[in-house]
């Protein structure tokens, strides 16, 4: 177990290193002059040159990456070129919104997927099964940003049930959550579809397994079998997928935050790309990659904990 965790952690660290290095290089090959972007079109060329020098853009690439890495290891991600604020502060400001959006979307997905997936598995071939399978297929095919536009049109523009965007800030918790409902629906629908399919499959597989059959032959009621055995068995597969979904949710937030003008991590990524704000983009990539790795890592550990019991039972 310890060795497993160590190997996993090592490979996660390696991946982070590769990703941040790639990001660094990517922004180098991009044409773009951050100083001109900061100063504006009329800027005196001498001021542009001086700002570029002040930003440290005149040092060679490996030196700058080394310096950045050294800082990152000490919790210093540098200063945003555009905002002039520490990148860590920016990230901490943006993270709660994106996390809240992801959690809301994931909860929504679970709320839909749990009953649908279970019912479909229990009554395989029944009406609910056919309907939920069809629905899941369609929901998985709908682009999240399009769903976002549609719900925005329907529930924010036609009916003023929810705000159309522009986050009110966490000092207004109710308004803040209200602003996240439509984005969460857009982001969660596709996740719900994937989860439904997976639950349906893993529960029906579990119900065919020996220990469930044994229980049934002992006269345990089908309902209890479902709750006690099948569900526990079924928890594992969605759990692994949920680990992967963290990445999908974070990536999805890039587009969804754009549709709804939400100041989260996703929009910060796009902003940093378009303004060539390398420190900010590096910070975002590092944070998103770390979150995904942590989620996968946690799922791996949970899986390793849960797995032996089930394997021995099956």
């Amino acid at each position, binding site marked *: 177990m310890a060795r497993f965790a160590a190997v996993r952690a090592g490979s996660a660290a390696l*991946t982070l290193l590769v990703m941040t290095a790639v990001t660094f290089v990517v922004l180098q090959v*991009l044409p773009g002059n951050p100083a001109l972007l900061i100063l504006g079109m009329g800027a005196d060329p001498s001021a542009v040159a001086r700002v570029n020098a002040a930003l440290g853009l005149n040092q060679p690439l490996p030196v700058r990456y080394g310096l950045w890495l050294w800082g990152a290891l000490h919790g210093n991600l540098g200063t945003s070129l555009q905002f002039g604020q520490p990148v860590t502060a920016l990230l901490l400001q943006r993270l709660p919104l994106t996390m809240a959006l992801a959690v809301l979307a994931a909860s929504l997905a679970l709320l839909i997927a749990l009953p649908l997936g279970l019912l479909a598995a229990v009554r395989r071939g029944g009406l609910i099964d056919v309907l939920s399978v069809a629905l899941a297929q369609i929901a*998985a095919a709908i682009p999240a940003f*399009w769903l976002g*536009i549609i719900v925005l*049109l329907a529930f924010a523009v036609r009916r003023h049930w929810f705000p159309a965007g522009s986050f009110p800030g966490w000092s207004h918790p109710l308004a803040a959550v209200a602003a996240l409902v439509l984005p969460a629906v857009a982001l969660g629908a596709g996740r719900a579809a994937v989860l439904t399919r997976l639950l349906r499959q893993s529960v029906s*597989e579990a119900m065919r397994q020996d220990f469930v059959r044994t229980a049934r032959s002992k006269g345990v009621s089908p309902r209890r079998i479902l709750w006690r055995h099948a569900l526990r068995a079924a928890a594992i597969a969605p759990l692994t997928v949920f680990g992967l979904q963290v990445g999908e949710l974070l*990536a999805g937030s890039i587009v969804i935050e754009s549709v709804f003008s939400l100041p989260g991590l996703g929009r910060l990524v796009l902003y940093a790309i378009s303004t060539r704000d390398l420190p900010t983009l590096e910070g975002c990539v590092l944070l998103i990659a770390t979150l*995904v*790795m942590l989620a996968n890592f946690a799922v791996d550990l949970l899986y390793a904990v849960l797995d032996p019991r089930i394997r021995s039972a099956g």
Partner: protein
Amino acid sequence: MSRVTAPLLIGGALAAAVVAAAVAGTALPPGAALAMHIPHRLLPPGPGHPFGTDQFGRDQLTRILVGAQASLEVALVATAVGLLAGVPLGAAAAMGGRRWDEVLMRLTDGMYAFPALLLALMVVTALGPGLAHTALAIGIVSAPPFARLTRARLLELRPLEYVEAARASGLGPWQVLLRHLLPGAYGALAVQASANMGGAILVEAALSYLGLGVQPPQPSWGGMLNDAQGFFLTSPWLALFPGLAITVAVLGFNLLGDGLSDLLEPRTRG
């Protein structure tokens, strides 16, 4: 038990419809999708323009048909790139011994764990926007699943009797791989390829919506949705049809993948 199922039929039909739309698009006079007619801008769906017109008075139906080409081209190229990069990687991992396997699989695991859209976004940012670059970017992020799949199938097949027999008969490792092992993975790869087409269309739409994918004036469904958002008050239908087109195309390839899986890989299905 392999069988032809409803997903195969429905998916096949939908995918065929998308291909037909793209072909119909090529049959239109060149420039039909670009022809501006500003006095006829933002017309609602009606006679002459079944899907209405956009802000330049361009016919939406024409643009959706021509847009199918962009989606299909990107998806096909991306899937081909994914196959060409992923299959050799997976084969190398499976055949190259433990050390190679560790390194390659950790690498693909790492990429796999990283959100595909973000990775594609970075690649497109580096290469610059446009159809070819979008296809390449999506192809790169498509490679890890193909690599994983190839490796898993090869490891499954290697201990099988017929492979052992081939090896015993004196065939070299390359010949065994190409003649006996890889053909055993074709079915699974076909299934993954079809699913990947659907996924690629989704990512392309998202990139084009963000303005980083297919560039104007070439019509793309994601780009059309981007344009449509500016006119949601007066012309909401502009946002309807491109989104439906994406959904139909993705649904088609996803179902086709499921159907192919039923047909070619029945034992992997529940």
